[in-house]
Protein backbone atom coordinates (compact mmCIF):
# COMPACT_ATOMS: atom_id res chain seq x y z
CA UNK A 1 0.00 0.00 0.00
CA UNK A 2 1.34 3.40 -0.96
CA UNK A 3 -0.30 6.35 0.78
CA UNK A 4 -0.95 9.50 -1.22
CA UNK A 5 0.79 12.77 -0.50
CA UNK A 6 -2.54 14.13 0.73
CA UNK A 7 -2.81 11.43 3.37
CA UNK A 8 0.77 12.06 4.54
CA UNK A 9 -0.01 15.75 4.75
CA UNK A 10 -3.10 15.06 6.82
CA UNK A 11 -1.29 12.72 9.22
CA UNK A 12 1.65 15.05 9.66
CA UNK A 13 -0.58 18.08 10.23
CA UNK A 14 -2.83 16.32 12.74
CA UNK A 15 0.14 14.99 14.75
CA UNK A 16 1.66 18.47 14.84
CA UNK A 17 -1.69 20.01 15.82
CA UNK A 18 -1.99 17.50 18.66
CA UNK A 19 1.54 18.18 19.91
CA UNK A 20 1.00 21.93 19.70
CA UNK A 21 -2.43 21.69 21.35
CA UNK A 22 -1.00 19.84 24.31
CA UNK A 23 2.15 21.90 24.74
CA UNK A 24 -0.04 24.99 24.67
CA UNK A 25 -2.46 23.41 27.14
CA UNK A 26 0.42 22.64 29.48
CA UNK A 27 1.55 26.26 29.23
CA UNK A 28 -1.96 27.50 30.03
CA UNK A 29 -1.80 25.50 33.25
CA UNK A 30 1.42 27.22 34.21
CA UNK A 31 -0.22 30.56 33.46
CA UNK A 32 -3.05 29.61 35.80
CA UNK A 33 -5.68 29.82 33.07
CA UNK A 34 -7.06 26.33 33.54
CA UNK A 35 -9.12 24.92 36.33
CA UNK A 36 -9.10 21.15 36.73
CA UNK A 37 -6.79 18.67 35.11
CA UNK A 38 -5.67 17.27 31.78
CA UNK A 39 -4.01 14.08 30.62
CA UNK A 40 -1.48 14.60 27.87
CA UNK A 41 -0.74 12.21 25.01
CA UNK A 42 2.52 13.78 23.88
CA UNK A 43 4.58 10.96 22.39
CA UNK A 44 1.43 8.99 21.52
CA UNK A 45 0.20 11.19 18.65
CA UNK A 46 0.53 8.46 16.02
CA UNK A 47 -2.01 6.19 17.74
CA UNK A 48 -5.18 8.27 17.61
CA UNK A 49 -4.17 10.17 14.49
CA UNK A 50 -3.18 7.05 12.55
CA UNK A 51 -6.30 5.05 13.42
CA UNK A 52 -8.90 7.83 13.15
CA UNK A 53 -7.58 9.26 9.88
CA UNK A 54 -8.26 5.89 8.27
CA UNK A 55 -11.94 6.01 9.27
CA UNK A 56 -15.02 7.51 7.67
CA UNK A 57 -17.32 9.94 9.41
CA UNK A 58 -19.89 7.14 9.84
CA UNK A 59 -17.37 5.04 11.81
CA UNK A 60 -17.71 5.72 15.52
CA UNK A 61 -14.94 6.21 18.03
CA UNK A 62 -14.96 6.02 21.82
CA UNK A 63 -12.14 8.16 23.19
CA UNK A 64 -10.08 7.98 26.36
CA UNK A 65 -9.22 10.62 28.94
CA UNK A 66 -5.90 10.93 27.09
CA UNK A 67 -7.50 11.42 23.73
CA UNK A 68 -6.73 14.77 22.09
CA UNK A 69 -4.94 12.83 19.34
CA UNK A 70 -8.07 10.73 18.79
CA UNK A 71 -10.32 13.79 18.58
CA UNK A 72 -8.05 15.67 16.19
CA UNK A 73 -7.63 12.45 14.22
CA UNK A 74 -11.42 12.22 13.83
CA UNK A 75 -11.60 15.82 12.58
CA UNK A 76 -13.04 17.41 15.69
CA UNK A 77 -13.15 21.21 15.77
CA UNK A 78 -9.98 22.35 17.55
CA UNK A 79 -11.56 25.64 18.61
CA UNK A 80 -14.35 23.83 20.43
CA UNK A 81 -11.82 21.42 21.99
CA UNK A 82 -9.75 24.29 23.34
CA UNK A 83 -12.85 26.15 24.53
CA UNK A 84 -13.98 23.06 26.43
CA UNK A 85 -10.52 22.67 27.94
CA UNK A 86 -10.96 26.24 29.21
CA UNK A 87 -14.46 25.46 30.48
CA UNK A 88 -16.15 27.96 28.19
CA UNK A 89 -19.78 27.98 27.02
CA UNK A 90 -18.67 27.57 23.39
CA UNK A 91 -16.84 24.32 24.16
CA UNK A 92 -17.97 20.92 22.96
CA UNK A 93 -19.70 20.26 26.27
CA UNK A 94 -20.77 23.86 26.98
CA UNK A 95 -18.07 23.94 29.68
CA UNK A 96 -19.75 21.18 31.65
CA UNK A 97 -17.52 18.26 30.67
CA UNK A 98 -13.93 19.39 30.33
CA UNK A 99 -11.41 17.63 28.13
CA UNK A 100 -12.10 14.25 29.75
CA UNK A 101 -15.54 14.32 28.09
CA UNK A 102 -15.13 15.97 24.71
CA UNK A 103 -17.51 14.49 22.16
CA UNK A 104 -18.68 15.35 18.69
CA UNK A 105 -21.48 13.15 17.46
CA UNK A 106 -21.42 14.95 14.09
CA UNK A 107 -17.99 13.52 13.25
CA UNK A 108 -18.66 10.15 14.91
CA UNK A 109 -17.01 10.71 18.28
CA UNK A 110 -19.28 9.26 20.95
CA UNK A 111 -17.20 10.88 23.63
CA UNK A 112 -14.09 10.69 25.73
CA UNK A 113 -14.39 8.92 29.05
CA UNK A 114 -13.21 9.69 32.55
CA UNK A 115 -13.55 6.08 33.67
CA UNK A 116 -10.76 3.69 32.69
CA UNK A 117 -12.46 1.14 30.43
CA UNK A 118 -15.74 3.04 30.52
CA UNK A 119 -16.07 3.23 26.75
CA UNK A 120 -15.69 -0.49 26.06
CA UNK A 121 -19.27 -1.63 26.80
CA UNK A 122 -20.68 1.43 25.00
CA UNK A 123 -18.65 0.53 21.92
CA UNK A 124 -20.38 -2.85 21.73
CA UNK A 125 -23.72 -1.04 21.67
CA UNK A 126 -22.77 1.38 18.92
CA UNK A 127 -21.52 -1.59 16.90
CA UNK A 128 -24.71 -3.52 17.62
CA UNK A 129 -26.67 -0.65 16.12
CA UNK A 130 -24.39 -0.68 13.04
CA UNK A 131 -24.91 -4.41 12.66
CA UNK A 132 -28.68 -4.12 13.26
CA UNK A 133 -28.94 -1.55 10.48
CA UNK A 134 -26.55 -3.54 8.23
CA UNK A 135 -24.20 -0.56 7.94
CA UNK A 136 -20.78 -0.95 6.37
CA UNK A 137 -19.06 0.86 9.21
CA UNK A 138 -17.29 -0.03 12.43
CA UNK A 139 -16.87 1.28 15.95
CA UNK A 140 -13.36 1.91 17.23
CA UNK A 141 -12.86 1.81 20.98
CA UNK A 142 -9.71 3.35 22.44
CA UNK A 143 -8.48 2.36 25.89
CA UNK A 144 -5.15 1.92 27.62
CA UNK A 145 -3.06 -0.92 29.00
CA UNK A 146 -4.60 -0.24 32.41
CA UNK A 147 -8.12 -0.75 31.10
CA UNK A 148 -7.21 -4.18 29.81
CA UNK A 149 -7.22 -5.34 33.44
CA UNK A 150 -10.75 -4.05 34.05
CA UNK A 151 -13.79 -6.30 33.95
CA UNK A 152 -15.30 -4.05 31.28
CA UNK A 153 -12.53 -5.12 28.87
CA UNK A 154 -13.21 -8.83 29.30
CA UNK A 155 -16.99 -8.52 29.23
CA UNK A 156 -16.95 -6.30 26.15
CA UNK A 157 -14.51 -8.37 24.08
CA UNK A 158 -16.47 -11.48 24.94
CA UNK A 159 -19.84 -9.96 24.04
CA UNK A 160 -18.50 -8.45 20.82
CA UNK A 161 -17.04 -11.83 19.89
CA UNK A 162 -20.14 -13.96 20.52
CA UNK A 163 -22.33 -11.46 18.67
CA UNK A 164 -19.70 -10.83 15.92
CA UNK A 165 -19.96 -7.08 16.39
CA UNK A 166 -17.96 -4.72 14.15
CA UNK A 167 -15.61 -3.32 16.82
CA UNK A 168 -11.93 -2.50 16.56
CA UNK A 169 -10.59 -2.53 20.11
CA UNK A 170 -7.50 -0.31 20.17
CA UNK A 171 -5.29 -0.66 23.23
CA UNK A 172 -2.82 2.18 23.56
CA UNK A 173 -0.11 0.58 25.65
CA UNK A 174 1.98 3.45 27.01
CA UNK A 175 3.65 1.21 29.61
CA UNK A 176 2.19 2.91 32.69
CA UNK A 177 -1.16 3.02 34.45
CA UNK A 178 -0.59 6.29 36.26
CA UNK A 179 2.60 5.28 38.12
CA UNK A 180 2.35 1.50 37.90
CA UNK A 181 4.36 -0.13 35.12
CA UNK A 182 2.69 -2.76 32.94
CA UNK A 183 5.21 -5.30 34.27
CA UNK A 184 3.61 -4.99 37.71
CA UNK A 185 0.00 -5.03 36.55
CA UNK A 186 -0.03 -8.07 34.27
CA UNK A 187 1.98 -11.22 33.77
CA UNK A 188 2.24 -10.98 29.99
CA UNK A 189 4.34 -8.75 27.78
CA UNK A 190 2.20 -8.75 24.68
CA UNK A 191 -1.32 -7.51 25.50
CA UNK A 192 -2.59 -8.63 22.09
CA UNK A 193 -2.50 -12.30 23.17
CA UNK A 194 -5.53 -11.55 25.34
CA UNK A 195 -7.59 -11.65 22.13
CA UNK A 196 -7.20 -15.43 22.06
CA UNK A 197 -9.33 -15.77 25.20
CA UNK A 198 -12.30 -14.47 23.25
CA UNK A 199 -11.62 -16.27 20.01
CA UNK A 200 -10.79 -13.09 18.12
CA UNK A 201 -7.77 -11.83 16.18
CA UNK A 202 -5.19 -9.75 18.02
CA UNK A 203 -2.23 -7.82 16.62
CA UNK A 204 0.51 -5.69 18.18
CA UNK A 205 2.06 -2.77 16.31
CA UNK A 206 4.68 -0.08 16.81
CA UNK A 207 2.49 2.66 18.22
CA UNK A 208 4.84 5.37 16.98
CA UNK A 209 4.66 4.45 13.30
CA UNK A 210 1.74 6.46 11.99
CA UNK A 211 1.96 5.18 8.43
CA UNK A 212 1.77 1.55 9.47
CA UNK A 213 -1.04 2.26 11.94
CA UNK A 214 -3.05 3.96 9.19
CA UNK A 215 -2.55 1.07 6.79
CA UNK A 216 -3.30 -1.60 9.40
CA UNK A 217 -6.51 0.22 10.38
CA UNK A 218 -7.76 0.11 6.80
CA UNK A 219 -7.04 -3.62 6.70
CA UNK A 220 -8.62 -4.14 10.12
CA UNK A 221 -11.83 -2.45 9.05
CA UNK A 222 -12.15 -4.76 6.08
CA UNK A 223 -11.41 -7.79 8.26
CA UNK A 224 -13.91 -6.73 10.96
CA UNK A 225 -16.81 -6.16 8.56
CA UNK A 226 -16.26 -9.72 7.35
CA UNK A 227 -15.25 -11.55 10.53
CA UNK A 228 -16.19 -9.61 13.63
CA UNK A 229 -14.15 -7.81 16.29
CA UNK A 230 -10.40 -7.49 16.54
CA UNK A 231 -7.89 -6.28 19.12
CA UNK A 232 -5.10 -3.94 18.00
CA UNK A 233 -2.40 -3.09 20.52
CA UNK A 234 -0.31 0.02 19.83
CA UNK A 235 2.89 0.01 21.85
CA UNK A 236 4.00 3.53 22.64
CA UNK A 237 5.08 5.78 25.51
CA UNK A 238 3.68 8.63 27.57
CA UNK A 239 6.31 11.40 27.65
CA UNK A 240 4.53 13.53 30.23
CA UNK A 241 3.33 12.50 33.70
CA UNK A 242 -0.09 10.91 34.18
CA UNK A 243 -1.70 14.29 34.75
CA UNK A 244 -0.49 17.76 35.56
CA UNK A 245 0.27 16.85 39.18
CA UNK A 246 2.65 13.94 38.53
CA UNK A 247 6.27 14.28 39.77
CA UNK A 248 7.28 11.08 37.91
CA UNK A 249 9.41 9.52 40.63
CA UNK A 250 8.62 6.04 39.31
CA UNK A 251 10.73 6.12 36.13
CA UNK A 252 14.18 7.25 35.04
CA UNK A 253 15.08 10.25 32.90
CA UNK A 254 17.05 7.87 30.66
CA UNK A 255 13.95 5.85 29.92
CA UNK A 256 12.03 8.97 28.90
CA UNK A 257 14.97 10.14 26.81
CA UNK A 258 15.20 6.82 25.03
CA UNK A 259 11.53 7.01 24.03
CA UNK A 260 11.84 10.62 22.92
CA UNK A 261 14.31 9.36 20.31
CA UNK A 262 11.42 7.34 18.91
CA UNK A 263 9.24 10.44 18.51
CA UNK A 264 6.36 9.59 16.14
CA UNK A 265 6.47 12.99 14.45
CA UNK A 266 10.23 12.77 13.81
CA UNK A 267 9.80 9.24 12.46
CA UNK A 268 7.09 10.36 10.07
CA UNK A 269 9.18 13.31 8.93
CA UNK A 270 12.11 11.02 8.21
CA UNK A 271 9.88 8.67 6.23
CA UNK A 272 8.44 11.54 4.15
CA UNK A 273 11.88 12.98 3.34
CA UNK A 274 13.52 9.63 2.59
CA UNK A 275 10.71 8.71 0.23
CA UNK A 276 10.70 12.21 -1.28
CA UNK A 277 6.97 12.62 -0.62
CA UNK A 278 7.38 16.22 0.51
CA UNK A 279 10.26 18.66 0.85
CA UNK A 280 11.69 20.04 4.09
CA UNK A 281 10.06 23.40 3.25
CA UNK A 282 6.66 21.84 2.84
CA UNK A 283 6.96 20.17 6.23
CA UNK A 284 8.03 23.41 7.88
CA UNK A 285 4.95 25.07 6.39
CA UNK A 286 2.69 22.34 7.83
CA UNK A 287 4.32 22.77 11.22
CA UNK A 288 3.67 26.50 10.98
CA UNK A 289 0.05 25.91 10.08
CA UNK A 290 -0.39 23.70 13.17
CA UNK A 291 0.98 26.46 15.38
CA UNK A 292 -1.38 29.01 13.81
CA UNK A 293 -4.38 26.69 14.20
CA UNK A 294 -3.72 26.32 17.90
CA UNK A 295 -3.10 30.05 18.35
CA UNK A 296 -6.49 30.69 16.77
CA UNK A 297 -8.09 28.12 19.06
CA UNK A 298 -6.55 29.75 22.13
CA UNK A 299 -7.86 33.12 20.99
CA UNK A 300 -11.33 31.68 20.32
CA UNK A 301 -11.42 30.13 23.79
CA UNK A 302 -10.04 33.25 25.46
CA UNK A 303 -12.76 35.41 23.90
CA UNK A 304 -15.58 32.95 24.61
CA UNK A 305 -18.12 33.51 27.39
CA UNK A 306 -18.25 31.52 30.62
CA UNK A 307 -21.28 29.23 31.00
CA UNK A 308 -24.15 30.59 33.10
CA UNK A 309 -25.55 28.95 36.23
CA UNK A 310 -29.02 29.67 34.82
CA UNK A 311 -28.36 26.94 32.25
CA UNK A 312 -27.13 24.31 34.70
CA UNK A 313 -30.19 22.06 34.46
CA UNK A 314 -30.05 21.97 30.65
CA UNK A 315 -29.31 18.49 29.35
CA UNK A 316 -29.60 16.60 32.67
CA UNK A 317 -32.65 15.10 30.99
CA UNK A 318 -33.56 14.98 27.30
Amino acid sequence: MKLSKEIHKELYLKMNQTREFEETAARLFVEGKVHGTAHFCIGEEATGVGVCSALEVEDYILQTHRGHNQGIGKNMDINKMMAEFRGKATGYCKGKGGCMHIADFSVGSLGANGVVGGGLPIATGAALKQKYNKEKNITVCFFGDGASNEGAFHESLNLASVWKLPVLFVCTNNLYGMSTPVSKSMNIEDISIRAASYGIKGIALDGNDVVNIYEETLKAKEYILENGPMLMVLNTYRWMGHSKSDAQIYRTKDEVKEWKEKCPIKQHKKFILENKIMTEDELVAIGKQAVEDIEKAVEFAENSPEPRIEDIFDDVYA
Partner: protein
Amino acid sequence: MREITYAQAINEAMSEEMRREKNLIFMGEDIGLYGGAFGVSKGMFEEFGPERILDTPITELAITGCAAGASMTGLRTIVEIMFSDFMTLAMEQLANQAAKNRFQFGGQGSVPMVLRAPGGSGTGAAAQHSQSLEAWVAHVPGLKVVIPSTPADAKGLLKASIRDDNPVVFLEQKLLYRVKGEVPDLDEDFIIPLGKADIKREGKDVTIITYGRMVQRCIKVAEEFAKDGVEIEVVDIRTLVPLDKETLISSAKKTGKVLVVHEACQTGGFGGELVSVVVESDAFFYLDAPVKRLGGLDVPIPYNPGLEALVVPTEEKITAAIKDLL
Protein backbone atom coordinates in the same frame (compact mmCIF):
# COMPACT_ATOMS: atom_id res chain seq x y z
CA MET B 1 -62.50 -4.81 32.08
CA ARG B 2 -60.29 -7.90 31.63
CA GLU B 3 -57.86 -9.07 34.29
CA ILE B 4 -54.25 -10.04 33.60
CA THR B 5 -51.19 -10.54 35.78
CA TYR B 6 -48.49 -7.96 36.46
CA ALA B 7 -46.05 -10.12 34.44
CA GLN B 8 -48.46 -10.33 31.49
CA ALA B 9 -48.98 -6.57 31.64
CA ILE B 10 -45.22 -6.03 31.32
CA ASN B 11 -45.05 -8.51 28.45
CA GLU B 12 -47.91 -6.71 26.67
CA ALA B 13 -46.28 -3.31 27.13
CA MET B 14 -43.00 -4.51 25.61
CA SER B 15 -44.67 -6.43 22.79
CA GLU B 16 -46.99 -3.59 21.78
CA GLU B 17 -44.07 -1.16 21.74
CA MET B 18 -41.90 -3.55 19.72
CA ARG B 19 -44.68 -3.90 17.13
CA ARG B 20 -44.96 -0.12 16.94
CA GLU B 21 -41.24 0.74 16.96
CA LYS B 22 -38.95 -1.31 14.71
CA ASN B 23 -35.84 0.26 16.23
CA LEU B 24 -36.65 -1.15 19.67
CA ILE B 25 -34.59 -4.14 20.83
CA PHE B 26 -34.63 -6.13 24.06
CA MET B 27 -31.65 -7.84 25.68
CA GLY B 28 -30.95 -9.80 28.82
CA GLU B 29 -30.01 -13.14 30.30
CA ASP B 30 -32.31 -16.05 29.36
CA ILE B 31 -35.03 -13.78 28.00
CA GLY B 32 -35.31 -15.61 24.66
CA LEU B 33 -36.66 -19.14 24.33
CA TYR B 34 -36.52 -19.58 28.10
CA GLY B 35 -38.83 -16.57 28.49
CA GLY B 36 -36.96 -14.86 31.32
CA ALA B 37 -36.19 -16.04 34.85
CA PHE B 38 -39.69 -14.97 35.93
CA GLY B 39 -41.37 -15.82 32.62
CA VAL B 40 -42.04 -12.19 31.80
CA SER B 41 -40.91 -12.36 28.17
CA LYS B 42 -42.63 -15.62 27.21
CA GLY B 43 -43.48 -15.72 23.51
CA MET B 44 -41.53 -12.62 22.57
CA PHE B 45 -38.60 -14.51 21.03
CA GLU B 46 -41.03 -16.42 18.79
CA GLU B 47 -42.72 -13.21 17.67
CA PHE B 48 -39.76 -10.86 17.25
CA GLY B 49 -36.85 -13.20 16.52
CA PRO B 50 -33.21 -13.34 17.58
CA GLU B 51 -32.22 -10.00 16.07
CA ARG B 52 -34.53 -8.06 18.38
CA ILE B 53 -34.72 -10.37 21.40
CA LEU B 54 -31.08 -10.83 22.36
CA ASP B 55 -30.06 -13.52 24.81
CA THR B 56 -26.82 -12.36 26.40
CA PRO B 57 -23.99 -14.00 28.28
CA ILE B 58 -24.01 -13.41 32.05
CA THR B 59 -22.41 -10.01 31.71
CA GLU B 60 -24.46 -7.26 33.37
CA LEU B 61 -21.91 -4.49 32.92
CA ALA B 62 -21.55 -5.14 29.20
CA ILE B 63 -25.30 -5.57 28.65
CA THR B 64 -26.04 -2.25 30.30
CA GLY B 65 -23.27 -0.40 28.46
CA CYS B 66 -24.21 -2.10 25.21
CA ALA B 67 -27.78 -0.88 25.60
CA ALA B 68 -26.53 2.63 26.39
CA GLY B 69 -24.29 2.62 23.30
CA ALA B 70 -27.04 1.33 21.02
CA SER B 71 -29.45 3.91 22.44
CA MET B 72 -26.95 6.75 22.00
CA THR B 73 -26.63 5.92 18.31
CA GLY B 74 -30.24 5.54 17.26
CA LEU B 75 -31.86 2.39 18.62
CA ARG B 76 -34.15 2.18 21.63
CA THR B 77 -33.39 -0.56 24.12
CA ILE B 78 -34.89 -2.55 26.95
CA VAL B 79 -32.51 -4.41 29.25
CA GLU B 80 -33.61 -7.04 31.72
CA ILE B 81 -31.36 -7.51 34.73
CA MET B 82 -32.48 -10.79 36.29
CA PHE B 83 -32.52 -9.50 39.88
CA SER B 84 -32.25 -5.83 40.74
CA ASP B 85 -29.45 -6.78 43.15
CA PHE B 86 -27.29 -7.36 40.07
CA MET B 87 -27.52 -3.69 39.18
CA THR B 88 -24.47 -3.56 41.44
CA LEU B 89 -22.58 -5.26 38.59
CA ALA B 90 -23.93 -2.78 36.05
CA MET B 91 -23.66 0.34 38.15
CA GLU B 92 -20.63 1.88 36.42
CA GLN B 93 -22.33 1.92 33.03
CA LEU B 94 -25.67 2.96 34.48
CA ALA B 95 -24.56 5.73 36.84
CA ASN B 96 -21.38 7.04 35.19
CA GLN B 97 -22.21 6.57 31.53
CA ALA B 98 -25.92 6.24 30.67
CA ALA B 99 -27.05 8.78 33.26
CA LYS B 100 -24.41 11.41 32.59
CA ASN B 101 -23.59 11.26 28.89
CA ARG B 102 -26.08 13.81 27.65
CA PHE B 103 -25.12 16.35 30.31
CA GLN B 104 -21.37 15.87 30.13
CA PHE B 105 -21.42 16.00 26.31
CA GLY B 106 -23.20 19.34 26.36
CA GLY B 107 -26.55 17.99 25.21
CA GLN B 108 -25.24 15.80 22.40
CA GLY B 109 -27.14 12.55 22.10
CA SER B 110 -29.71 11.00 24.37
CA VAL B 111 -29.98 7.55 25.91
CA PRO B 112 -33.48 6.14 25.42
CA MET B 113 -33.13 2.89 27.35
CA VAL B 114 -35.18 1.10 29.98
CA LEU B 115 -33.43 -1.09 32.52
CA ARG B 116 -36.02 -3.48 33.95
CA ALA B 117 -35.16 -5.38 37.11
CA PRO B 118 -37.23 -7.11 39.77
CA GLY B 119 -36.65 -6.22 43.39
CA GLY B 120 -38.03 -7.00 46.79
CA SER B 121 -38.00 -9.79 49.36
CA GLY B 122 -40.43 -12.58 50.18
CA THR B 123 -39.17 -15.36 47.93
CA GLY B 124 -36.71 -17.03 50.27
CA ALA B 125 -33.80 -16.02 48.08
CA ALA B 126 -31.89 -14.30 50.91
CA ALA B 127 -29.59 -11.29 51.02
CA GLN B 128 -28.27 -11.07 47.45
CA HIS B 129 -31.56 -11.61 45.60
CA SER B 130 -34.07 -9.62 47.63
CA GLN B 131 -32.97 -6.03 47.99
CA SER B 132 -34.89 -2.86 47.26
CA LEU B 133 -32.21 -0.56 45.83
CA GLU B 134 -34.32 2.27 44.43
CA ALA B 135 -32.68 4.93 46.62
CA TRP B 136 -29.32 4.23 44.98
CA VAL B 137 -30.58 5.00 41.50
CA ALA B 138 -32.89 7.82 42.54
CA HIS B 139 -29.76 9.57 43.81
CA VAL B 140 -28.21 9.82 40.34
CA PRO B 141 -29.30 12.84 38.26
CA GLY B 142 -30.02 11.74 34.69
CA LEU B 143 -31.90 8.57 35.63
CA LYS B 144 -35.65 8.24 35.99
CA VAL B 145 -36.97 5.67 38.46
CA VAL B 146 -40.32 3.87 38.26
CA ILE B 147 -41.88 1.25 40.59
CA PRO B 148 -45.37 0.08 39.58
CA SER B 149 -47.74 -1.52 42.10
CA THR B 150 -50.53 -2.87 39.85
CA PRO B 151 -50.75 -4.61 36.46
CA ALA B 152 -52.36 -1.52 34.90
CA ASP B 153 -49.67 0.77 36.24
CA ALA B 154 -46.98 -1.67 35.13
CA LYS B 155 -48.30 -1.62 31.57
CA GLY B 156 -48.97 2.09 31.23
CA LEU B 157 -45.79 3.20 32.96
CA LEU B 158 -43.59 0.77 31.05
CA LYS B 159 -44.93 2.01 27.72
CA ALA B 160 -44.23 5.57 28.82
CA SER B 161 -40.74 4.56 29.96
CA ILE B 162 -39.95 2.93 26.62
CA ARG B 163 -41.04 6.10 24.79
CA ASP B 164 -39.01 8.32 27.12
CA ASP B 165 -35.73 9.67 25.72
CA ASN B 166 -33.86 9.16 29.00
CA PRO B 167 -32.50 6.11 30.80
CA VAL B 168 -35.32 4.79 32.98
CA VAL B 169 -34.77 2.26 35.78
CA PHE B 170 -38.01 0.28 35.94
CA LEU B 171 -38.08 -1.69 39.18
CA GLU B 172 -40.59 -4.50 39.13
CA GLN B 173 -41.81 -6.34 42.20
CA LYS B 174 -41.16 -10.08 42.19
CA LEU B 175 -44.03 -10.88 44.50
CA LEU B 176 -46.48 -9.00 42.27
CA TYR B 177 -45.64 -10.89 39.04
CA ARG B 178 -48.48 -13.40 39.55
CA VAL B 179 -50.99 -10.89 40.97
CA LYS B 180 -53.92 -10.12 38.68
CA GLY B 181 -55.59 -6.80 38.14
CA GLU B 182 -57.79 -4.93 35.70
CA VAL B 183 -55.98 -3.64 32.62
CA PRO B 184 -57.54 -1.90 29.59
CA ASP B 185 -57.83 -3.97 26.39
CA LEU B 186 -54.85 -4.21 24.04
CA ASP B 187 -54.30 -0.61 23.14
CA GLU B 188 -51.32 1.14 21.73
CA ASP B 189 -52.20 4.36 23.50
CA PHE B 190 -52.64 3.15 27.07
CA ILE B 191 -49.87 5.31 28.52
CA ILE B 192 -49.46 6.48 32.10
CA PRO B 193 -47.13 9.49 32.09
CA LEU B 194 -44.10 9.40 34.39
CA GLY B 195 -44.23 11.79 37.32
CA LYS B 196 -47.88 11.38 38.29
CA ALA B 197 -48.71 9.88 41.67
CA ASP B 198 -51.95 7.95 42.04
CA ILE B 199 -54.32 8.09 45.00
CA LYS B 200 -55.10 4.40 45.30
CA ARG B 201 -57.58 4.93 48.13
CA GLU B 202 -59.16 8.20 49.16
CA GLY B 203 -59.41 9.24 52.80
CA LYS B 204 -59.53 12.31 55.02
CA ASP B 205 -57.93 11.27 58.29
CA VAL B 206 -54.40 10.00 57.56
CA THR B 207 -52.16 9.93 54.48
CA ILE B 208 -49.91 6.97 53.74
CA ILE B 209 -47.30 7.71 51.09
CA THR B 210 -45.90 4.50 49.66
CA TYR B 211 -45.01 2.59 46.48
CA GLY B 212 -44.43 -0.89 45.07
CA ARG B 213 -45.47 -4.00 46.95
CA MET B 214 -46.35 -1.99 50.08
CA VAL B 215 -49.27 -0.27 48.31
CA GLN B 216 -51.60 -3.30 48.56
CA ARG B 217 -50.53 -3.92 52.15
CA CYS B 218 -51.31 -0.34 53.13
CA ILE B 219 -54.71 -0.52 51.40
CA LYS B 220 -55.50 -3.65 53.40
CA VAL B 221 -54.62 -1.89 56.64
CA ALA B 222 -56.71 1.09 55.55
CA GLU B 223 -59.75 -1.15 54.97
CA GLU B 224 -59.45 -2.40 58.56
CA PHE B 225 -59.32 1.14 59.94
CA ALA B 226 -62.34 2.05 57.80
CA LYS B 227 -64.40 -0.38 59.88
CA ASP B 228 -63.76 1.93 62.83
CA GLY B 229 -64.57 5.02 60.83
CA VAL B 230 -60.96 6.10 60.19
CA GLU B 231 -60.46 6.92 56.51
CA ILE B 232 -56.86 6.54 55.32
CA GLU B 233 -55.69 7.98 52.02
CA VAL B 234 -53.11 5.77 50.26
CA VAL B 235 -50.91 7.68 47.82
CA ASP B 236 -48.87 5.54 45.43
CA ILE B 237 -46.04 7.72 44.13
CA ARG B 238 -45.38 5.28 41.20
CA THR B 239 -42.36 7.21 39.95
CA LEU B 240 -39.60 8.28 42.34
CA VAL B 241 -37.94 10.39 39.65
CA PRO B 242 -39.61 12.58 38.56
CA LEU B 243 -41.59 12.87 41.79
CA ASP B 244 -45.12 14.26 41.88
CA LYS B 245 -44.61 16.48 44.92
CA GLU B 246 -47.90 18.31 44.52
CA THR B 247 -50.06 15.25 45.11
CA LEU B 248 -48.12 14.37 48.27
CA ILE B 249 -48.30 17.87 49.62
CA SER B 250 -52.00 18.35 48.92
CA SER B 251 -52.88 15.02 50.54
CA ALA B 252 -50.80 15.93 53.61
CA LYS B 253 -52.64 19.25 53.85
CA LYS B 254 -55.97 17.48 53.63
CA THR B 255 -55.34 14.92 56.38
CA GLY B 256 -52.71 16.62 58.57
CA LYS B 257 -51.18 13.24 59.39
CA VAL B 258 -48.59 11.47 57.26
CA LEU B 259 -46.97 8.04 57.35
CA VAL B 260 -44.34 7.04 54.76
CA VAL B 261 -43.94 3.30 54.13
CA HIS B 262 -41.45 1.36 52.03
CA GLU B 263 -39.86 -2.06 52.00
CA ALA B 264 -36.27 -0.84 51.55
CA CYS B 265 -34.00 -0.40 54.56
CA GLN B 266 -35.03 2.70 56.44
CA THR B 267 -31.67 4.43 56.79
CA GLY B 268 -30.87 6.41 53.66
CA GLY B 269 -34.06 5.11 52.06
CA PHE B 270 -36.27 7.10 49.72
CA GLY B 271 -38.71 7.61 52.61
CA GLY B 272 -36.46 10.29 54.01
CA GLU B 273 -36.89 12.22 50.76
CA LEU B 274 -40.67 11.82 50.87
CA VAL B 275 -40.80 13.09 54.46
CA SER B 276 -38.68 16.07 53.47
CA VAL B 277 -40.99 16.95 50.59
CA VAL B 278 -43.89 17.18 53.03
CA VAL B 279 -42.19 18.99 55.92
CA GLU B 280 -40.34 21.47 53.71
CA SER B 281 -43.59 22.52 52.05
CA ASP B 282 -46.42 24.63 53.44
CA ALA B 283 -48.11 21.34 54.38
CA PHE B 284 -45.95 21.60 57.50
CA PHE B 285 -48.38 24.16 58.91
CA TYR B 286 -51.26 21.74 58.47
CA LEU B 287 -49.65 18.84 60.33
CA ASP B 288 -51.29 17.63 63.55
CA ALA B 289 -48.50 15.20 64.40
CA PRO B 290 -44.85 14.58 63.47
CA VAL B 291 -44.51 12.80 60.13
CA LYS B 292 -43.73 9.10 60.61
CA ARG B 293 -41.54 6.84 58.55
CA LEU B 294 -41.66 3.06 58.38
CA GLY B 295 -39.03 1.25 56.30
CA GLY B 296 -37.42 -2.17 56.46
CA LEU B 297 -35.01 -2.99 59.25
CA ASP B 298 -31.42 -2.01 58.55
CA VAL B 299 -30.32 -5.60 57.93
CA PRO B 300 -29.63 -7.76 54.88
CA ILE B 301 -32.72 -9.82 53.98
CA PRO B 302 -32.47 -13.12 55.94
CA TYR B 303 -33.28 -16.57 54.55
CA ASN B 304 -35.62 -18.03 57.20
CA PRO B 305 -39.23 -17.31 56.15
CA GLY B 306 -40.29 -16.20 59.62
CA LEU B 307 -37.41 -13.75 59.85
CA GLU B 308 -37.78 -12.61 56.24
CA ALA B 309 -41.41 -11.61 56.77
CA LEU B 310 -40.57 -9.59 59.88
CA VAL B 311 -37.76 -7.41 58.52
CA VAL B 312 -40.07 -5.43 56.19
CA PRO B 313 -43.11 -3.37 57.23
CA THR B 314 -45.86 -5.80 58.24
CA GLU B 315 -49.58 -5.06 58.52
CA GLU B 316 -49.12 -5.03 62.30
CA LYS B 317 -46.30 -2.46 62.14
CA ILE B 318 -48.24 -0.26 59.74
CA THR B 319 -51.31 -0.50 61.98
CA ALA B 320 -49.27 0.45 65.04
CA ALA B 321 -47.73 3.42 63.22
CA ILE B 322 -51.18 4.69 62.21
CA LYS B 323 -52.40 4.36 65.78
CA ASP B 324 -49.42 6.44 66.94
CA LEU B 325 -50.42 9.16 64.49
CA LEU B 326 -54.04 9.13 65.62
